[in-house]
């Protein structure tokens, strides 16, 4: 099999595996939530005596620990883990084969950027997963990876070609790879932030979030710990984004004779940087931490997506490498 076919085949297989993982992880989340809710209810019934009512919530978590998650939840976790891991390996093979096929680093157009960025997001998830249990993020991350790969293979796919002169620089390796990595990190952080907002909404009993369809939120950690996780990822992403911006300016100085020219891509890179900076400030500003800061992080991530989609396709600029027309 030639590298081009091998790449596409691996990526399609990875897409299917991610979809399977997403289903499995979602089933697991649902089952754990069911168990937690049941345990809570049991405790509430048992401890109908007035004194027990208040601490019931805090007792619930350790109470269901010895019983452990149900067999289904455990099996689903096994399937989800295996599918994600094998998917990530095949995904990596697909990205590398694309690089071999093209004869250059696989992030020179929108298709290549998407498959590489999605791979980084999954790898970031797996790396963090090794250090702490963040399986509750898995449905979101695998869903995004499935969508990204599916879109890339169906809509964005382009035959591998040689690099145009403007991209023939080692800064392509440095600047764009760090941009891909920070996009992946921001993606995992955004999933955590969305969960944080949903969870805190449920805790406050707002609207539909308090209802049955969102019962799975019982299985995700508290809004506070989700915030802490999202912050740590966003902090990594922000530092990498700062590097992307500086490296991009250095490259622009080499290639175009100016380090900054307010090209649409430069404008949006700047906007993203400023929005994440605002988020970092908001976290430590009275009256802005918590949900408001989380919304800022979400808006910054929306800008990341805009920068990648709309700016690539609709805006004419020096960074028009998307090749989607």
């Amino acid at each position, binding site marked *: 099999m030639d590298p081009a076919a091998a790449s596409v085949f691996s990526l399609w297989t990875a897409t299917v595996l991610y979809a399977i993982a997403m289903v499995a992880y979602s089933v697991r989340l649902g089952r754990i939530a069911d168990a937690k809710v049941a345990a809570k209810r049991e405790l509430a019934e048992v401890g109908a005596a007035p004194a027990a009512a208040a601490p019931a919530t805090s007792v619930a978590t350790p109470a269901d620990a010895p019983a452990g998650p149900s067999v289904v939840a455990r099996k689903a976790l096994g399937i989800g883990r295996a599918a994600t891991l094998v998917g990530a390996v095949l995904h990596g093979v697909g990205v590398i084969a694309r690089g071999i096929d093209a004869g250059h680093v696989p992030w020179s157009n929108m298709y290549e950027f998407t498959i590489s960025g999605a791979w980084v997001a999954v790898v970031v998830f797996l790396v963090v997963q090794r250090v702490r249990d963040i399986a509750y993020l898995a449905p979101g991350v695998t869903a995004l990876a499935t969508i990204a790969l599916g879109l890339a293979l169906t809509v964005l796919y382009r035959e591998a070609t040689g690099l*145009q002169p403007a991209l023939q620089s080692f800064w392509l390796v440095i600047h764009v790879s760090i941009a891909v990595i920070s996009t992946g990190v921001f993606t995992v952080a955004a999933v955590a932030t969305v969960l944080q907002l949903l969870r805190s909404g449920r805790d406050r009993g707002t609207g539909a979030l308090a209802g049955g369809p969102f019962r799975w939120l019982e299985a995700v950690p508290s809004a506070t710990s989700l915030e802490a996780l999202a912050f740590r990822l966003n902090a990594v992403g922000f*530092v990498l984004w700062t590097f992307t911006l*500086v490296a991009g300016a250095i490259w622009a100085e080499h290639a175009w004779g100016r380090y900054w020219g307010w090209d649409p891509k430069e404008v949006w890179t700047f906007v993203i940087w400023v*929005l994440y900076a*605002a988020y970092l400030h908001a976290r*430590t500003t009275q009256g802005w931490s918590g949900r408001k800061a989380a919304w800022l992080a979400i808006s910054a991530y929306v800008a990341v997506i805009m920068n990648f989609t709309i700016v690539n396709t609709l*805006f004419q600029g020096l960074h028009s490498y998307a090749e989607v027309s």
Partner: protein
Amino acid sequence: MSDIEGLEEIGAPRRFSVDNYAIADGPRLGWRGWLRWGWRQVTSMRLALVLLLLLGLAAIPGSVLPQWPQDAAATRQFIQDNGAWGEIADAIGLLDVFGSAWFTAIYLLLFASLVGCIVPRSVAHFRAMRAEPAAAPSSLKRYEPVEETAQVPLEEAVRRARHALRPRQGWAGLLDGHRVRVDERGTAVAIAGEKGHVREFGNLLFHLSLVAVLLAVAAGSLLTYRGQAVITEGSTFTNAVVDYDTYEAGRFFDPGSLEPFTLRLDALDSEFYGDGRPSHFRANVTLTEPDGQSRPAAIEVNRPLQVAGGKIYLLGNGFAPRFTITDADGEVAFSGAVPFLPQDSVYTSTGVVKVPDVTSGPQIGLAGTLLPTVVETADGGLASAWPQPLDPVIVFFVYTGDLGLDDGVPQNVYRLDMTELAPVLDEAGEPATLAIRPGETVDLPQGLGTITWESLPRFIAVDLRADPSLPWLLAASAGAFVGIAISLFGSRRRIWLHLTPGPGTSAVTLVSGAVLAPAHDSAASRELDRVMAAVAGRAPADGDDKASED
């Protein structure tokens, strides 16, 4: 000071308080108070946050609407197409966002806020760095202490603890290690190790570096110069203001300081992939220094040529066909190479030839389209199929009249000013066209003369630029990057040790240790274990623990 404190007492629950003249005996702010109040607002984190959001939002129109500095032609077109709205957008600066008063106001206010915030914090941090760390608490019970017995006397245990806590050797020690305080408490010794000032250091470094970035950019805009030139194969460019097609310089740049080197374009190598996309451009040039020394050099995309006082960038290329035109009297009215600007990826190029110096009759203008590899399209028209000149053809429209060159108004050399020109018509009454191939001589319609296409050299468009602020800008950016990394990744910990001589014998020491760190800092307990191990003289436990968030 007193007036503003009084104000706060009255308006304590409100975020913004103003001078309350409704209360006769109420305290007055006075102008100093107002200044102080204003400054406090400017330097508040809340305002910084709002300004950051404004800065982000304000930048967006700069990517959506055409901008004068980036694309003047598109901007002019936008104003024409949108009538009054276009005029309004232009008037309020939406078509030059990054030079507009409001964008400038936002970032200057942001930097004022930053400076007002960072300077007092720098002073405070400097003091804090020199102050001793806080003493260890008298009891560690609240902090889940770990206990151990070291088989050494107290003095040795203290020495080991200090050694384990101190910064590492080498530059990494700047970021690593604790500031240590030792207190003797009766027969026991309490040691406090503190880490975390490095975060504030990074934070300050980051913000001060941003100020340095702004200053470097400002200095650069005053000291820089930039010029564009088009050089045809075989011709020579001299580095002087008059030889540039466009030239801009900062206020403090002295045009007399341009080094008078010359640059001759010997040849432009251009290669394309099988699908017609460009793969390689290389301009082979001869650079002659002011002292007369010549050397061959190359300019490529991404590889600018370094010359005295600046760099030369290859930004564009195309064809510059060379023509000789004789007028109706048979005199040579024009001879030279004319750059044709490429319009697409197959180098369909357009250009004009202006012939003002005819012996008699009206002036002649030719507007041509160059097709490097001509093919006939399905609808009978002509198009280019390949960017290389395999079978080049130029199709001209011919105009006569007044070219408008004598009005003293600078003209676009790539366009005919049509106000005083009329197309030459053929017998059928249609605008006359003529097609020409290299080496051919073709008669102009209506006996206006002849045109000969002599040869097809290429041209390069180069940018020359010098900006002495670049090294400073790079240093400031690197400072910002290092600063933000330290500030976000630096750890913040306190390690406390209580060392007590063993009961009955002074040959052993009882060690009790605890660590205080943010909840997410899973490495803190490993760090404590490392220190405890060093004091006890054992190997540290393998620290691959899995922490769980919930």
